[in-house]
Protein backbone atom coordinates (compact mmCIF):
# COMPACT_ATOMS: atom_id res chain seq x y z
CA UNK A 1 0.00 0.00 0.00
CA UNK A 2 1.55 3.19 -1.15
CA UNK A 3 0.53 6.47 0.33
CA UNK A 4 1.50 9.80 -1.11
CA UNK A 5 2.46 11.80 1.91
CA UNK A 6 1.33 15.39 1.68
CA UNK A 7 2.17 17.55 4.64
CA UNK A 8 1.59 20.78 2.73
CA UNK A 9 -1.99 20.98 3.99
CA UNK A 10 -0.76 20.52 7.54
CA UNK A 11 1.72 23.36 7.18
CA UNK A 12 -0.94 25.57 5.65
CA UNK A 13 -3.10 24.94 8.68
CA UNK A 14 -0.29 25.46 11.14
CA UNK A 15 -2.09 28.32 12.98
CA UNK A 16 -4.97 25.92 13.67
CA UNK A 17 -2.60 23.34 15.13
CA UNK A 18 -0.75 26.04 17.06
CA UNK A 19 -3.97 26.95 18.87
CA UNK A 20 -4.30 23.28 19.77
CA UNK A 21 -0.72 23.01 21.02
CA UNK A 22 -1.26 26.01 23.26
CA UNK A 23 -4.42 24.36 24.60
CA UNK A 24 -2.50 21.13 25.25
CA UNK A 25 0.31 22.88 27.09
CA UNK A 26 -2.15 24.94 29.12
CA UNK A 27 -4.19 21.98 30.36
CA UNK A 28 -1.01 19.99 30.95
CA UNK A 29 0.48 22.66 33.22
CA UNK A 30 -2.74 22.93 35.23
CA UNK A 31 -3.29 19.18 35.59
CA UNK A 32 0.32 18.24 36.28
CA UNK A 33 0.58 20.84 39.07
CA UNK A 34 -2.78 19.88 40.59
CA UNK A 35 -2.21 16.16 40.09
CA UNK A 36 1.35 15.84 41.41
CA UNK A 37 0.84 18.53 44.08
CA UNK A 38 -2.47 17.14 45.30
CA UNK A 39 -1.03 13.63 45.10
CA UNK A 40 1.59 14.62 47.65
CA UNK A 41 -1.14 15.64 50.10
CA UNK A 42 -3.16 12.47 49.48
CA UNK A 43 -0.02 10.31 49.70
CA UNK A 44 0.95 11.81 53.05
CA UNK A 45 -2.63 11.40 54.28
CA UNK A 46 -2.61 7.79 53.09
CA UNK A 47 0.49 7.19 55.24
CA UNK A 48 -1.08 8.77 58.33
CA UNK A 49 -1.50 6.67 61.45
CA UNK A 50 -4.95 8.15 62.07
CA UNK A 51 -7.64 6.10 60.31
CA UNK A 52 -9.78 9.24 59.99
CA UNK A 53 -7.15 10.63 57.66
CA UNK A 54 -5.79 7.53 55.98
CA UNK A 55 -9.10 5.89 55.22
CA UNK A 56 -10.67 8.69 53.12
CA UNK A 57 -7.36 9.06 51.31
CA UNK A 58 -7.35 5.37 50.57
CA UNK A 59 -10.95 5.46 49.33
CA UNK A 60 -10.07 8.39 47.08
CA UNK A 61 -7.09 6.56 45.61
CA UNK A 62 -9.06 3.38 44.94
CA UNK A 63 -11.97 5.18 43.26
CA UNK A 64 -9.89 7.29 40.94
CA UNK A 65 -7.22 4.72 40.22
CA UNK A 66 -9.70 2.04 39.22
CA UNK A 67 -11.91 4.04 36.87
CA UNK A 68 -10.86 5.11 33.36
CA UNK A 69 -9.89 8.76 32.95
CA UNK A 70 -11.89 8.97 29.75
CA UNK A 71 -15.01 7.92 31.62
CA UNK A 72 -14.27 10.40 34.39
CA UNK A 73 -13.96 13.27 31.94
CA UNK A 74 -17.23 12.34 30.24
CA UNK A 75 -18.87 11.86 33.62
CA UNK A 76 -17.76 15.27 34.88
CA UNK A 77 -19.03 16.85 31.67
CA UNK A 78 -22.44 15.18 31.36
CA UNK A 79 -23.38 13.65 34.73
CA UNK A 80 -21.80 15.94 37.30
CA UNK A 81 -23.79 19.10 36.32
CA UNK A 82 -27.08 17.22 36.45
CA UNK A 83 -26.31 15.61 39.82
CA UNK A 84 -24.91 18.69 41.53
CA UNK A 85 -26.31 21.63 39.62
CA UNK A 86 -22.74 22.90 39.15
CA UNK A 87 -22.05 23.76 35.53
CA UNK A 88 -18.88 22.36 33.98
CA UNK A 89 -17.30 23.26 30.68
CA UNK A 90 -15.01 21.00 28.61
CA UNK A 91 -11.92 22.50 30.23
CA UNK A 92 -13.14 22.01 33.80
CA UNK A 93 -14.39 18.48 33.16
CA UNK A 94 -11.04 17.50 31.62
CA UNK A 95 -9.04 19.16 34.40
CA UNK A 96 -11.06 17.34 37.05
CA UNK A 97 -10.79 13.95 35.34
CA UNK A 98 -7.06 14.14 34.61
CA UNK A 99 -6.02 15.82 37.89
CA UNK A 100 -7.96 13.50 40.16
CA UNK A 101 -6.66 10.44 38.38
CA UNK A 102 -3.10 11.78 38.55
CA UNK A 103 -3.52 12.60 42.24
CA UNK A 104 -4.57 9.01 42.91
CA UNK A 105 -1.63 7.50 41.04
CA UNK A 106 1.00 9.91 42.31
CA UNK A 107 -0.30 9.54 45.89
CA UNK A 108 0.75 5.90 45.71
CA UNK A 109 4.15 6.90 44.34
CA UNK A 110 4.73 9.35 47.20
CA UNK A 111 3.55 6.81 49.74
CA UNK A 112 5.97 4.23 48.38
CA UNK A 113 8.72 6.84 48.62
CA UNK A 114 7.88 7.68 52.23
CA UNK A 115 7.76 4.00 53.11
CA UNK A 116 11.16 3.43 51.55
CA UNK A 117 12.81 5.78 54.06
CA UNK A 118 14.23 3.87 57.00
CA UNK A 119 12.59 4.18 60.40
CA UNK A 120 15.96 5.37 61.68
CA UNK A 121 15.45 8.71 59.90
CA UNK A 122 12.15 9.23 61.71
CA UNK A 123 13.91 8.41 64.97
CA UNK A 124 16.74 10.83 64.26
CA UNK A 125 14.27 13.66 63.75
CA UNK A 126 12.28 12.66 66.79
CA UNK A 127 15.40 12.45 68.96
CA UNK A 128 16.30 16.10 68.38
CA UNK A 129 12.79 17.15 69.36
CA UNK A 130 11.11 17.42 65.97
CA UNK A 131 7.37 16.81 65.73
CA UNK A 132 5.92 14.28 63.29
CA UNK A 133 5.13 17.05 60.81
CA UNK A 134 8.55 18.66 61.08
CA UNK A 135 10.30 15.34 60.57
CA UNK A 136 8.04 14.53 57.62
CA UNK A 137 8.58 17.90 55.95
CA UNK A 138 12.27 18.43 56.67
CA UNK A 139 13.75 14.93 56.81
CA UNK A 140 11.52 12.36 55.15
CA UNK A 141 9.90 14.07 52.16
CA UNK A 142 13.00 15.68 50.63
CA UNK A 143 14.70 12.29 50.38
CA UNK A 144 11.52 10.39 49.51
CA UNK A 145 10.54 12.75 46.67
CA UNK A 146 14.05 12.66 45.25
CA UNK A 147 13.93 8.89 45.31
CA UNK A 148 10.62 8.68 43.39
CA UNK A 149 11.48 11.40 40.88
CA UNK A 150 11.82 8.92 37.98
CA UNK A 151 8.35 7.55 38.75
CA UNK A 152 6.95 11.08 38.98
CA UNK A 153 8.56 11.93 35.64
CA UNK A 154 6.73 8.97 34.15
CA UNK A 155 3.47 10.27 35.60
CA UNK A 156 4.19 13.71 34.14
CA UNK A 157 4.69 12.22 30.66
CA UNK A 158 1.49 10.27 31.11
CA UNK A 159 -0.38 13.45 32.06
CA UNK A 160 0.89 15.24 28.97
CA UNK A 161 -0.40 12.50 26.73
CA UNK A 162 -3.66 12.14 28.70
CA UNK A 163 -4.45 15.73 27.71
CA UNK A 164 -5.59 14.37 24.34
CA UNK A 165 -8.53 12.76 26.15
CA UNK A 166 -9.91 16.25 26.74
CA UNK A 167 -10.81 16.31 23.03
CA UNK A 168 -13.69 13.92 23.74
CA UNK A 169 -15.72 16.72 25.34
CA UNK A 170 -14.56 19.26 22.79
CA UNK A 171 -11.74 21.01 24.65
CA UNK A 172 -9.53 22.73 22.09
CA UNK A 173 -6.17 20.94 22.15
CA UNK A 174 -3.81 19.40 19.61
CA UNK A 175 -5.77 16.24 18.78
CA UNK A 176 -9.03 18.17 18.53
CA UNK A 177 -7.48 20.64 16.07
CA UNK A 178 -5.88 17.83 14.04
CA UNK A 179 -9.29 16.23 13.69
CA UNK A 180 -10.62 19.56 12.46
CA UNK A 181 -7.87 19.80 9.83
CA UNK A 182 -8.43 16.19 8.84
CA UNK A 183 -12.19 16.71 8.40
CA UNK A 184 -11.66 19.77 6.24
CA UNK A 185 -8.79 18.45 4.11
CA UNK A 186 -9.49 14.70 4.08
CA UNK A 187 -5.94 13.98 5.25
CA UNK A 188 -6.31 11.94 8.48
CA UNK A 189 -3.00 10.12 7.97
CA UNK A 190 -0.95 13.32 7.85
CA UNK A 191 -3.02 15.04 10.55
CA UNK A 192 -2.69 12.32 13.15
CA UNK A 193 0.93 11.65 12.24
CA UNK A 194 1.56 15.34 12.85
CA UNK A 195 -0.01 15.03 16.30
CA UNK A 196 2.28 12.12 17.18
CA UNK A 197 5.34 14.00 15.93
CA UNK A 198 4.39 17.14 17.86
CA UNK A 199 4.01 15.18 21.11
CA UNK A 200 7.34 13.47 20.61
CA UNK A 201 9.14 16.71 19.76
CA UNK A 202 7.78 18.42 22.87
CA UNK A 203 8.21 15.52 25.28
CA UNK A 204 11.63 14.20 24.33
CA UNK A 205 13.66 17.29 25.33
CA UNK A 206 11.61 17.67 28.52
CA UNK A 207 12.39 14.08 29.54
CA UNK A 208 16.09 14.61 28.78
CA UNK A 209 15.91 17.67 31.02
CA UNK A 210 14.53 15.63 33.90
CA UNK A 211 17.47 13.21 33.61
CA UNK A 212 19.80 16.16 34.07
CA UNK A 213 17.74 17.26 37.06
CA UNK A 214 17.95 13.79 38.60
CA UNK A 215 21.72 13.76 38.18
CA UNK A 216 21.99 17.17 39.82
CA UNK A 217 19.87 16.03 42.76
CA UNK A 218 22.00 12.95 43.23
CA UNK A 219 24.69 14.98 44.96
CA UNK A 220 25.31 13.70 48.47
CA UNK A 221 24.08 10.17 47.81
Amino acid at each position, binding site marked *: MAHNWDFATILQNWPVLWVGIKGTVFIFVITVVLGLGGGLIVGVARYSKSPFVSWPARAFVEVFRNTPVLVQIIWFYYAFPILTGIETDPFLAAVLGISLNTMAFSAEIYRAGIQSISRAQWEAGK*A*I*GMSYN*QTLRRIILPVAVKRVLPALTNRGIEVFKMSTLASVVGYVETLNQAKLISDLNFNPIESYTAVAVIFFVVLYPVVQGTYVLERMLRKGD
Partner: protein
Amino acid sequence: MSEILRIENLHKSFGDLEVLKGIDLTVQSGETVVLLGSSGSGKSTMLRCLNFMETPTEGKIHLNGELIGTERGGRMRYREAELCALRARIGMVFQHFNLFPHMTVLENVMEGQVIVLGRAKPEAQDKAMAQLDRVGLAEKATEYPARLSGGQKQRVAIARALAMDPEVMLFDEVTSALDPELVGEVLKTIRQLAEDGMTMLCVTHELGFAYHVANRVLFLHEGTILEQGEPQSILKAPATDRMSEFLEGHSLFKLPD
Protein backbone atom coordinates in the same frame (compact mmCIF):
# COMPACT_ATOMS: atom_id res chain seq x y z
CA MET B 1 26.51 17.19 92.50
CA SER B 2 22.78 17.50 92.10
CA GLU B 3 20.21 15.03 90.88
CA ILE B 4 19.39 15.44 87.18
CA LEU B 5 17.46 12.30 86.30
CA ARG B 6 15.28 10.13 88.50
CA ILE B 7 13.56 6.99 87.28
CA GLU B 8 10.97 5.26 89.45
CA ASN B 9 9.59 1.79 88.86
CA LEU B 10 10.03 1.90 85.08
CA HIS B 11 8.19 -0.84 83.22
CA LYS B 12 7.99 -1.42 79.48
CA SER B 13 6.12 -4.16 77.67
CA PHE B 14 5.82 -4.87 73.97
CA GLY B 15 2.56 -6.77 73.75
CA ASP B 16 2.90 -9.74 76.08
CA LEU B 17 6.66 -9.37 76.34
CA GLU B 18 7.73 -7.50 79.44
CA VAL B 19 11.16 -6.06 78.68
CA LEU B 20 11.63 -3.79 81.69
CA LYS B 21 10.35 -5.06 85.03
CA GLY B 22 10.72 -2.14 87.37
CA ILE B 23 13.85 -0.01 87.09
CA ASP B 24 14.79 2.57 89.73
CA LEU B 25 17.71 4.85 89.09
CA THR B 26 18.92 8.28 90.10
CA VAL B 27 21.60 9.98 88.04
CA GLN B 28 23.61 12.92 89.36
CA SER B 29 24.59 15.83 87.20
CA GLY B 30 27.95 15.18 85.51
CA GLU B 31 27.79 11.44 86.08
CA THR B 32 28.74 8.89 83.42
CA VAL B 33 26.63 5.77 83.76
CA VAL B 34 27.37 2.73 81.64
CA LEU B 35 24.68 0.11 81.06
CA LEU B 36 25.91 -3.42 80.46
CA GLY B 37 23.94 -6.55 79.79
CA SER B 38 23.52 -9.25 77.22
CA SER B 39 21.25 -8.86 74.24
CA GLY B 40 17.61 -8.84 75.33
CA SER B 41 18.42 -7.65 78.84
CA GLY B 42 16.49 -4.42 78.22
CA LYS B 43 19.38 -1.95 78.28
CA SER B 44 18.59 -0.28 74.95
CA THR B 45 14.87 -0.20 75.76
CA MET B 46 15.65 1.46 79.06
CA LEU B 47 17.71 4.13 77.34
CA ARG B 48 14.99 4.69 74.74
CA CYS B 49 12.36 5.13 77.46
CA LEU B 50 14.33 8.01 78.99
CA ASN B 51 13.70 10.31 76.02
CA PHE B 52 10.41 8.63 75.18
CA MET B 53 11.48 7.09 71.90
CA GLU B 54 9.48 4.33 73.59
CA THR B 55 6.65 5.25 75.94
CA PRO B 56 7.01 3.52 79.31
CA THR B 57 4.14 1.22 80.23
CA GLU B 58 4.44 2.23 83.86
CA GLY B 59 6.65 4.35 86.06
CA LYS B 60 7.80 7.92 86.40
CA ILE B 61 10.69 9.88 84.98
CA HIS B 62 11.87 13.18 86.45
CA LEU B 63 14.27 15.46 84.58
CA ASN B 64 15.87 18.18 86.67
CA GLY B 65 13.24 17.74 89.34
CA GLU B 66 10.21 17.98 87.04
CA LEU B 67 7.97 14.99 86.48
CA ILE B 68 7.49 14.21 82.79
CA GLY B 69 3.82 13.82 81.90
CA THR B 70 0.81 14.13 84.15
CA GLU B 71 -0.74 11.47 86.31
CA ARG B 72 -4.42 10.83 85.75
CA GLY B 73 -6.47 7.87 86.89
CA GLY B 74 -3.39 6.10 88.22
CA ARG B 75 -1.63 6.24 84.83
CA MET B 76 0.86 8.60 83.30
CA ARG B 77 -0.38 10.61 80.32
CA TYR B 78 1.93 12.31 77.90
CA ARG B 79 1.21 15.04 75.38
CA GLU B 80 3.18 14.86 72.16
CA ALA B 81 4.24 18.52 72.36
CA GLU B 82 5.58 17.94 75.86
CA LEU B 83 7.57 14.93 74.68
CA CYS B 84 9.04 16.88 71.74
CA ALA B 85 10.17 19.59 74.14
CA LEU B 86 11.67 16.92 76.40
CA ARG B 87 13.55 15.21 73.56
CA ALA B 88 15.08 18.54 72.63
CA ARG B 89 16.62 18.60 76.12
CA ILE B 90 18.04 15.07 75.92
CA GLY B 91 20.62 14.22 73.28
CA MET B 92 20.63 10.77 71.72
CA VAL B 93 23.22 9.10 69.54
CA PHE B 94 22.37 5.90 67.68
CA GLN B 95 24.26 2.81 66.62
CA HIS B 96 23.77 3.59 62.93
CA PHE B 97 24.40 7.37 63.16
CA ASN B 98 21.15 8.28 61.38
CA LEU B 99 22.54 11.44 59.80
CA PHE B 100 20.28 13.26 57.35
CA PRO B 101 21.68 12.24 53.94
CA HIS B 102 20.34 15.23 52.02
CA MET B 103 22.04 17.78 54.26
CA THR B 104 25.68 18.71 54.62
CA VAL B 105 27.46 18.04 57.90
CA LEU B 106 26.90 21.65 58.92
CA GLU B 107 23.20 21.54 57.99
CA ASN B 108 22.81 18.32 59.98
CA VAL B 109 24.13 20.04 63.08
CA MET B 110 22.07 23.22 62.47
CA GLU B 111 18.74 21.52 61.71
CA GLY B 112 17.47 20.92 65.24
CA GLN B 113 18.72 24.27 66.47
CA VAL B 114 16.84 26.17 63.76
CA ILE B 115 13.69 24.05 63.44
CA VAL B 116 13.17 22.97 67.05
CA LEU B 117 14.87 25.63 69.16
CA GLY B 118 14.11 28.45 66.73
CA ARG B 119 17.64 29.82 66.78
CA ALA B 120 18.61 32.36 64.12
CA LYS B 121 20.71 30.81 61.36
CA PRO B 122 23.94 32.74 62.02
CA GLU B 123 23.80 31.78 65.69
CA ALA B 124 23.02 28.15 64.85
CA GLN B 125 25.90 28.09 62.38
CA ASP B 126 28.38 29.44 64.95
CA LYS B 127 27.16 26.91 67.47
CA ALA B 128 27.35 24.08 64.92
CA MET B 129 30.89 25.00 63.94
CA ALA B 130 31.92 25.11 67.59
CA GLN B 131 30.52 21.62 68.17
CA LEU B 132 32.08 20.27 64.97
CA ASP B 133 35.37 21.71 66.14
CA ARG B 134 34.86 19.95 69.47
CA VAL B 135 34.55 16.57 67.75
CA GLY B 136 37.41 17.45 65.40
CA LEU B 137 35.43 17.71 62.18
CA ALA B 138 35.16 21.44 61.48
CA GLU B 139 36.91 20.98 58.13
CA LYS B 140 34.18 18.54 56.99
CA ALA B 141 31.36 21.06 57.47
CA THR B 142 30.48 21.31 53.79
CA GLU B 143 30.70 17.58 53.03
CA TYR B 144 27.68 15.30 52.72
CA PRO B 145 27.47 12.38 55.18
CA ALA B 146 28.01 9.83 52.40
CA ARG B 147 31.57 11.13 52.02
CA LEU B 148 32.51 10.43 55.65
CA SER B 149 33.89 7.33 57.37
CA GLY B 150 31.78 5.59 60.01
CA GLY B 151 33.75 7.12 62.84
CA GLN B 152 33.39 10.60 61.34
CA LYS B 153 29.64 10.09 60.84
CA GLN B 154 29.26 9.11 64.46
CA ARG B 155 31.20 12.16 65.63
CA VAL B 156 28.93 14.37 63.50
CA ALA B 157 25.94 12.67 65.13
CA ILE B 158 27.43 13.52 68.52
CA ALA B 159 27.95 17.15 67.46
CA ARG B 160 24.34 17.26 66.20
CA ALA B 161 23.09 16.17 69.62
CA LEU B 162 25.45 18.50 71.51
CA ALA B 163 24.39 21.53 69.47
CA MET B 164 21.00 21.33 71.17
CA ASP B 165 22.68 22.03 74.55
CA PRO B 166 21.28 18.83 76.07
CA GLU B 167 21.04 18.33 79.81
CA VAL B 168 21.69 14.60 79.41
CA MET B 169 23.25 12.57 76.60
CA LEU B 170 22.20 9.02 75.73
CA PHE B 171 24.54 6.79 73.74
CA ASP B 172 22.97 3.63 72.34
CA GLU B 173 25.73 1.20 71.30
CA VAL B 174 27.36 3.96 69.31
CA THR B 175 30.50 1.98 68.42
CA SER B 176 28.85 -1.34 67.58
CA ALA B 177 28.52 -0.60 63.88
CA LEU B 178 32.06 0.70 63.46
CA ASP B 179 35.19 -0.95 62.12
CA PRO B 180 37.48 -1.76 65.06
CA GLU B 181 40.06 0.85 64.10
CA LEU B 182 37.39 3.58 64.12
CA VAL B 183 36.04 2.78 67.58
CA GLY B 184 38.85 4.63 69.33
CA GLU B 185 38.17 8.06 67.84
CA VAL B 186 34.51 7.92 68.88
CA LEU B 187 35.25 6.68 72.39
CA LYS B 188 37.87 9.40 72.78
CA THR B 189 35.25 12.01 71.85
CA ILE B 190 32.80 10.62 74.40
CA ARG B 191 35.48 10.43 77.06
CA GLN B 192 36.29 14.10 76.46
CA LEU B 193 32.61 14.90 76.99
CA ALA B 194 32.63 13.02 80.27
CA GLU B 195 35.66 15.00 81.38
CA ASP B 196 33.86 18.21 80.39
CA GLY B 197 31.16 17.29 82.90
CA MET B 198 28.37 16.13 80.57
CA THR B 199 25.81 13.81 82.16
CA MET B 200 25.74 10.62 80.11
CA LEU B 201 24.14 7.21 79.96
CA CYS B 202 25.88 4.79 77.65
CA VAL B 203 24.81 1.38 76.46
CA THR B 204 28.01 -0.25 75.26
CA HIS B 205 29.97 -3.46 74.97
CA GLU B 206 33.28 -1.66 75.39
CA LEU B 207 34.28 -2.82 78.85
CA GLY B 208 37.55 -0.92 78.72
CA PHE B 209 35.57 2.28 78.18
CA ALA B 210 33.29 1.39 81.10
CA TYR B 211 36.28 0.71 83.28
CA HIS B 212 38.11 3.95 82.51
CA VAL B 213 35.32 6.45 81.95
CA ALA B 214 32.20 5.42 83.88
CA ASN B 215 31.43 6.63 87.38
CA ARG B 216 28.95 3.84 87.74
CA VAL B 217 28.19 0.62 85.91
CA LEU B 218 24.75 -0.98 85.82
CA PHE B 219 24.34 -4.60 84.86
CA LEU B 220 20.90 -5.36 83.49
CA HIS B 221 19.50 -8.83 83.32
CA GLU B 222 15.98 -9.81 82.24
CA GLY B 223 14.60 -6.32 82.68
CA THR B 224 15.99 -5.45 86.10
CA ILE B 225 19.21 -3.93 87.40
CA LEU B 226 20.97 -6.99 88.78
CA GLU B 227 24.11 -5.23 89.98
CA GLN B 228 25.53 -1.77 90.09
CA GLY B 229 28.59 -0.08 91.43
CA GLU B 230 31.87 1.61 90.65
CA PRO B 231 33.50 0.07 87.60
CA GLN B 232 36.77 -0.67 89.39
CA SER B 233 35.02 -2.95 91.86
CA ILE B 234 32.04 -4.32 89.93
CA LEU B 235 34.00 -5.24 86.81
CA LYS B 236 36.76 -6.94 88.76
CA ALA B 237 34.64 -8.62 91.37
CA PRO B 238 31.05 -9.08 90.24
CA ALA B 239 28.70 -10.28 92.95
CA THR B 240 26.47 -12.46 90.81
CA ASP B 241 27.25 -15.51 88.69
CA ARG B 242 25.24 -14.00 85.85
CA MET B 243 27.49 -10.97 85.63
CA SER B 244 30.65 -13.08 85.95
CA GLU B 245 29.50 -15.16 82.99
CA PHE B 246 28.74 -12.01 81.04
CA LEU B 247 32.20 -10.56 81.69
CA GLU B 248 33.92 -13.83 80.83
CA GLY B 249 31.97 -13.88 77.60
CA HIS B 250 33.70 -10.68 76.55
CA SER B 251 37.02 -12.18 75.61
CA LEU B 252 38.35 -8.77 74.61
CA PHE B 253 38.15 -7.64 78.19
CA LYS B 254 41.52 -7.37 79.80
CA LEU B 255 41.97 -5.88 83.22
CA PRO B 256 44.94 -3.65 83.74
CA ASP B 257 47.55 -5.14 86.08
